[in-house]
């Protein structure tokens, strides 16, 4: 038995990956992972840092998770407007929002470590700078490279920016290009930004340890109304921090997930030198299905394997969504729910389903009655 995250684990994960380079995490993928903590399949695919999209595609379930070039360039333009001149607009915005002192103007670009693309080097530099002696610390830090522990392993993360305030408190700053119109923004987008901020807050707390505190209020910078003028708002992410910590604690350590997975399961695509997958798609699909999933319609927005898992889950009430399943008394199978509703199951109803069965039968008979009444127009 190897230690958690130890060489044995790494070896198995590398085998699952099949010689491909590991993929990095980001706040979005961690937030998505946390949104379905009960899914061993995703936990494993993520821990092994596989190319989920390629895998889904090769197994016969391509996902159109594309991003429009217009959205992409809008994001780039908005961010560049702020970052191009960090001593001007950006600083003034943050001064206003966080009440920075006039002396707090330092700006450090952690993106560039003399041109090294090495993530470990960048992380080391981030750590050195952010935990350095207080008099050496700046105020604004661009592109720190953080690390995040998930499923017992580390993933690298890169927030847009972090602001620092004089009382030894860091704030996470996020630049997003969705508009805030008359003080309101798309709630789904704000929620996504908040949970991503929470991921960064946790990662920052992990990094600075007890040398400083990281505030639960993040700063969100978005375009205001219909123009490109930025607007900074503070975002309290305490709730998201709670949710995230709870969900992350439910993600089983990757060792215990591995313990339930047969040793010969692999997600390798057996790519040739040109990167063309050689593996038999059916074989790949079989291996994927040997790891348990936990499909719900939320997967459609967050996981590359969604079409595969949805197809696999057909015939189950989980494809209809959590609230439907609850209304059906938690019954999992569609045919079974129907049988119970019609009361034509010759076998006795098990004890734990009696109440659910009674409700379904009642619903079915009411539905029948009402449809009959409508046809007869008796009411």
């Amino acid at each position, binding site marked *: 038995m190897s230690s958690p995250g130890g060489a044995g684990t790494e070896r198995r994960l590398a085998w699952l990956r099949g010689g491909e380079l590991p993929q990095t995490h980001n706040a979005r993928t961690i937030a998505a992972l946390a949104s379905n903590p009960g899914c061993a399949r995703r936990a494993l695919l993520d821990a092994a840092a596989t190319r989920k999209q390629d895998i889904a595609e090769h197994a016969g379930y391509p996902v159109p998770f594309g991003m429009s070039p217009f959205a*992409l360039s809008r994001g*780039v333009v908005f961010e560049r407007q702020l970052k191009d*001149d960090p*001593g*001007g607009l950006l600083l*003034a915005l943050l001064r206003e929002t966080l009440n920075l002192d006039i002396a707090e*103007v330092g*700006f450090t670009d952690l993106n560039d470590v003399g*041109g090294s693309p090495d993530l470990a*080097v960048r992380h080391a530099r981030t750590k050195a700078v952010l935990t350095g002696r207080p008099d050496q610390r700046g105020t604004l830090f661009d592109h720190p490279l953080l690390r995040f522990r998930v499923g017992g392993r580390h993933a690298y993360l890169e927030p847009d920016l972090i602001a620092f305030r004089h009382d030894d408190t860091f704030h996470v700053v996020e630049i997003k290009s969705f508009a805030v119109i008359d003080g309101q923004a798309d709630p789904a987008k704000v929620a996504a930004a908040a949970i991503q901020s929470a991921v960064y807050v946790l990662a920052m707390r992990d990094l600075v340890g007890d040398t400083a505190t990281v505030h639960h209020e993040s700063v969100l910078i978005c375009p205001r109304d219909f123009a490109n003028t930025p607007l900074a708002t503070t975002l309290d992410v305490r709730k998201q921090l709670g949710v995230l910590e709870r969900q992350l604690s439910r993600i089983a350590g990757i060792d215990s997930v591995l313990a339930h997975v047969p040793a010969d399961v692999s997600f390798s695509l057996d790519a040739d030198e040109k990167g063309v997958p050689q593996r038999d798609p059916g074989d790949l699909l079989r291996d994927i299905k040997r790891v348990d999933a936990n499909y719900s319609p939320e997967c459609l927005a967050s996981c590359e394997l969604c079409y595969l898992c949805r197809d696999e889950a057909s015939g189950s009430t989980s494809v209809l969504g959590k609230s439907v399943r609850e209304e059906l008394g938690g019954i999992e199978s569609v045919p079974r729910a129907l049988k119970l509703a019609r009361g034509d199951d010759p076998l006795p109803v098990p004890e734990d389903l009696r109440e659910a069965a009674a409700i379904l039968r009642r619903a079915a008979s009411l539905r029948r009655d009402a449809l009959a009444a409508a046809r007869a127009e008796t009411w």
Partner: protein
Amino acid sequence: MGEPLDSAEALEERISALRAAVRRAVLDGDADRARALRRDLSHAEQDWDNALDAQAARAQPGSLEPAPERDDDQSPAERQPRGEPRGGTLLPLREQVHEALSLLQVPAAPRLIATVHEAFYATSFPTARLTSLRRDEERSFKTAPFARPYYICAALAADFLSPSRGLLAISTWPMERRIIGSLSPRVDFLVAAINVAQAIEQIPQPVPAARALLARFAANVRGSSSANSAGRPSGRIEPRSVIRAAQAELAVHQDEDHAARAEAARRAREQLDEPEQLFGAASFRRAATADKLAGER
């Protein structure tokens, strides 16, 4: 004939968008997209290199590269790349950049350079063009060092002496001015604000673009106009009050910034060769950095 130039510009915009996209795709863990984007990127870069060579040879008077076949009965002024100002001055791009930087007196990003030139010299140019300008300058310097009175060069990040992202500077400036320490972005912003305000004071009838530029500075310097908030200036802006407010804040940062810059400049002069002093330490020395990091911990 203007075709390859226009497409070089388009390519630059495309390249920078693609770079950003690749970066995002990688961070998003979206391997598929990243791979496709990288392929597009390398094609675009290749095309751009080709287009650039042609352009450099054609547009730079005194260039050492062979001139492409073209009608040679044009005056130098007419040899401007297409898309250059139709009215106003017809200076080569590098000279326009020199004009704008000389006014600002601090390293600046392409967008600011273009805006300043538009405000004070009534001509603008696509900012994407400036990225290639720096490469041209470096190439020209390496081929014939100090053959020109000045070069458009890089600003250097104080810590690693690598070229600071996107900033352009003038080679004849003292090294200290071309170093970017942690306080320098703000200090340079304030210096630029002062210089822009002073320039405007001297013009009897500043064009709207100039006023807009001043307003942009004013909006981000506290106390420079009666009521404003970040990014959103209001009311009429007096150059005098912008200068006063900027100077007041400058006094707070100046000494510390200067010390940091002087120290880094000394290192640069000691450690870097001439091209590196102008265009930044090119290659990353992993061992040195790792040592430095270990030392800081």
